[in-house]
């Protein structure tokens, strides 16, 4: 009875708060400060250590909102890896896609029965002229790509090449 009530209230909360992404497990791959807003200049509301398990609640730009214990805050997207199991390793389970912060159910695919592409498959691959011809008919011209961008409102922006980082002995957590 009590459980049922809890279930109902969760449902109600979800319905009232609109389309929210289901929280999914994640963990920190570096020490981070939790921010009150998705912005570097926002107030700090706490800190999370590398390896700490969090719940990923949402994303905005280059930031993700996480729940760490009782504290909720924003950290940089690139500081968080997804999946349960913390920094030590891979998530467990035979169903994948669930533990992501994406809500599309079609992404839940059972692993069982899917054999991956192997090196041997590539070695044995025989040249396929028909498929290559097909591929080459699908290519678009520079002018077509520009027209597509213009129609979409995609404007080319000036963005500098990222510098090559200095060599660091900074082993990030996790080997997935």
């Amino acid at each position: 009875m009590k459980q049922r009530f809890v279930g109902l209230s969760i449902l109600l909360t979800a319905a009232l708060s609109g389309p929210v992404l289901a929280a999914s497990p994640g963990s920190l791959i570096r020490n981070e400060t939790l921010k009150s807003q998705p912005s570097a200049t926002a107030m700090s509301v706490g800190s999370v250590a590398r390896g700490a398990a969090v719940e990923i609640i949402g994303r905005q730009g280059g930031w993700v909102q996480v729940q760490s214990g009782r504290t909720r805050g924003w950290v940089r997207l690139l500081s968080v890896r997804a999946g349960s199991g913390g920094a030590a390793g891979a998530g467990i389970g035979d169903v994948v896609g669930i533990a992501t912060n994406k809500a599309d159910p079609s992404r839940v695919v059972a692993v069982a029965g899917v054999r991956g592409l192997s090196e041997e498959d590539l070695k044995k691959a025989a040249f396929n002229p028909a498929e290559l011809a097909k591929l080459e008919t699908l290519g678009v011209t520079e002018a077509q790509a520009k027209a597509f961008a213009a129609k979409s409102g995609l404007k080319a922006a000036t963005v500098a090449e990222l510098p090559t980082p200095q060599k660091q002995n900074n082993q990030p957590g996790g080997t997935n």
Partner: protein
Amino acid sequence: MKRLAFIFALATLVSAPAYAFKLKDLLNVPDQNKTQQPAAASGTQQKQRFDTQALAKTLFGKTSTEDEIRIGRQIAGNLLGAMPLVRDDDLQRYVNVVGRWVAEQSGRNDIRWYFGVLDSEDINAFAAPGGYVFLTKGLYRRLSNEAELAGVLGHEIAHITHKDHLKLLKQTTLISTLGQAVGENFKGSDQAVQNLIGNGAEIMARGLDKDTELAADRTGVVFAARAGYDPWGLPTVLQDLTALPAGDQRTSLLYKTHPAPADRLAALGDAIGPRFDSLTGGKDFKDRFYRIR
């Protein structure tokens, strides 16, 4: 012994008269559609061996765009032999316009660019020299918007503009595959190039080194951002991949040839830091993103 053979091959190249190493001049492989008479076969093989050596030599220097395309085309044709295209022209066209627009930001307009979604549940993406870019249906299905697609394609476009696979060929080919005569002829297949690249599309299973992959991540993110997309597409895809179990068969080749996604995330984080904080207004077109039926 192998070394001796290699030196001999080099010596042959050095002592050869000055050739123009333009492939079209070099190649005079007989029409492969016609059945060859056994008597002519050995001559053809010799010719192919010579062509391969000459082609390999061009790799020592600056590879011409023409050669680059020819090598990439053969690799692409082989890869398509392992995995055909998804039979969905709308999907393929969509990926081509997005990809071509991202490629526009790379500054390489001396090549045609081709993009294809491969009919495989494996999770991976590939780039072959000369502008051939692929991603699998398995990876495409995990994407949730156009900015993510742009980021994935950006990474592959970066491999092509950095000429990573050509460099790999330069490092490894002569020793391992020079002069090998390979298999049957297929219509349109380029034997001299095939001799150079080993068996089938195995070069796509040979990993580039870690720094090369991380560099492609950095450049890929920048290309997508230059195209007007939300720069967080590729990082989001990498983050999504960190959630997959390590033993997932669909990622075994990806992880054999790439650093672990968590390491890629960390490295991108180091590189980007606060640099994109002022970069707002990038688009992700979640609503129009093409979903595979």
